[in-house]
């Protein structure tokens, strides 16, 4: 019997028991669907992160206080802090940097005419806007003279505007940040959430004013742009040598690139996706056990048929192949169905929520390959049982 006929024979047997075949297949369908869906969601999460990073601007270098070996948790406690002067030095000396933005963070109470809000304040310099692609919608942004003059001016985010002023025009108005008066000079464009960080809820003030406001000199971090992405390494060396000169030759700070951070997140998400896919793979194995179960029943029911086939000249391997192909047909048909359902589900989810779920070719290949393997693996035992039947007893079987 050739291979094509074996498959026809298997299909015939499956069609004869439609409901049973369908239910058996369902186990595989569910397994494959979940693999496809979960991988699509995991890939979606990676896509989402990539989109977010793309919005953060490129060629970014982040300089944080604290040596790398101590980890970020110990930052700035025992080490020499990063200061505004460090940032100034970088801006003057590091020719591979294009824009240096010192950053101070703090939380304050903002008041305007009886309205009170707890908001985040970021003290920075004009370069921050270029580095992070931030634009002002109305009014103006911080200027160099605002920074050098310790001016009490603020550029506020959209949410801060709405909460403190309602619909009124805030430009030129005064808000009080921890009982110091600041004049509102601009409103930021709507930014939305970026990696759990929302500029809409913030007020930007000159970094020098922030030092006055919070009564501290040390910076949270320094953000710097590198002239070209391929000169990142050189720029990092330059920054390191400039800062070490200022910090008594100690490397008590950490450099991080946007690319490295993204790589780390990408690795974590890839691992999570693989883990989710493996868990879904377990249900595929359960589906395989379902196939084995049904095939064992089928072998028992068709004992006489097997006996007849052996009597008229079927070899053991013919019988083995017949049942193995049945198993593989169930599992791979279930695989194809599962891929279709999973892909449809992922696309529907994407259409409904906008989450960038993506059905990747490799997940389709792996899901199909794995479901076929499951069919072979769990088909072997029943098929061998069939092939090893004693024809004399099989022919007498009631």
């Amino acid at each position, binding site marked *: *019997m050739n291979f094509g*006929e074996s498959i026809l024979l298997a299909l015939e047997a499956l069609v*004869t028991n439609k409901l049973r075949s369908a239910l058996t297949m369902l186990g595989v369908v569910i397994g494959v669907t979940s693999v496809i869906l979960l991988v699509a969601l995991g890939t979606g999460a990676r896509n989402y992160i990539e989109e977010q990073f793309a919005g953060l601007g490129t060629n970014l270098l982040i300089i944080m206080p604290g040596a790398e070996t101590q980890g970020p948790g110990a930052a700035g406690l025992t080490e020499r802090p990063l200061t505004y002067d460090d940032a100034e030095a970088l801006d003057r000396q590091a020719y591979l940097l294009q824009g240096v933005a010192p950053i101070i963070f703090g939380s304050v109470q903002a008041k305007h005419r009886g309205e009170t809000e707890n908001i985040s304040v970021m003290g920075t310099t004009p370069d921050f806007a270029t580095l992070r692609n931030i634009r002002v919608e109305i009014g103006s942004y911080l200027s160099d003279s605002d920074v050098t003059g310790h001016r009490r001016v603020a550029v506020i985010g959209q949410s801060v505007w709405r909460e403190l002023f309602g619909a009124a025009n805030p430009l030129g108005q005064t808000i009080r940040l921890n009982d110091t008066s600041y004049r509102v000079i601009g409103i930021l464009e709507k930014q939305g959430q970026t990696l759990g960080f929302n500029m809409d809820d913030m007020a930007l003030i000159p970094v020098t004013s922030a030092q006055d406001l919070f009564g501290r000199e040390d910076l949270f971090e320094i953000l710097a742009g590198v002239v070209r992405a391929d000169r990142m390494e050189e720029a990092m060396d330059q920054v390191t040598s400039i800062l070490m000169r200022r910090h008594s030759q100690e490397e008590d700070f950490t450099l991080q690139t946007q690319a490295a951070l993204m790589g780390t997140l990408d690795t974590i998400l890839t691992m999570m996706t693989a883990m989710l896919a493996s868990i879904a793979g377990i249900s595929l194995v359960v589906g395989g056990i379902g196939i084995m179960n049904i095939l064992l029943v089928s072998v028992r029911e068709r004992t*006489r*048929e097997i*006996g*007849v*086939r*052996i*009597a*008229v*000249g*079927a*070899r*053991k*391997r*013919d019988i083995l192949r017949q049942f193995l192909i049945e198993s593989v047909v169930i599992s791979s048909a279930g695989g194809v169905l599962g891929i279709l359902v999973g892909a449809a589900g992922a696309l529907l989810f994407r259409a409904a929520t906008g989450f960038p779920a993506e059905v990747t070719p490799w997940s389709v290949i792996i899901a199909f390959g794995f479901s076929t393997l499951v069919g072979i693996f769990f088909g072997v035992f029943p098929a061998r049982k069939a092939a090893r039947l004693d*024809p*004399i007893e099989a*022919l007498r079987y009631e």
Partner: protein
Amino acid sequence: MLIRLEKVTKEYTLGEETVQALVDVDLQIESGEYLAIIGPSGSGKSTLMNIIGLLDRPSRGTYYLNDRDVTEMDDDELAGMRNRYIGFVFQTFNLLPRQSALANVALPLVYAGLDRDERHERAREALRSVDLGNRMHHLPNELSGGQRQRVAIARALVNKPSLLLADEPTGNLDSRTGNEILELFDNLNRGGNVTIAMVTHEPDVAARAMRSVRVFDGRVSEAR
């Protein structure tokens, strides 16, 4: 000589006991013969049938089929020999219930490696030879007992075997239908030169054969 059994013994172990189903059986069947194998149930005639039909192996002794020693052959070779030289007819017909008469008859040709067209052609021919040319696409449960047995006979004959092995072929049929089957056997034997070995416990059925052997307590003797 088509079939030659020399000192064939078959033993089974049941727990601690060894049961001898066949003891030193010498039996020869010539091409074109019509042989009845008679004997009470439990005498060993089914074991003899199974050994002749290559479904079972002797514990000792030698079996030559068409002058080839089949006791030395492996399972795959035996399957090939069954396919080419033996046609089985069972008491309970043993047709595949969900396959048409045509597909049932064509089954041995599937394992002979013939292509679909040739299988169907030869299956149609075999069905016509048992007067079932007009029932080819019926399922077994749409046929009468006699018709089913004739489908089974067509299946046994389709690959032009050397030997038709029938195990109580009329056991599940009423006497009139049984008679029709026996007439078909007569015709096949006389007209078609088909060699037949038939197991039966009914003396009047055995009487239709050219020659009878009796199996009793595992030993075979000429009955007539």
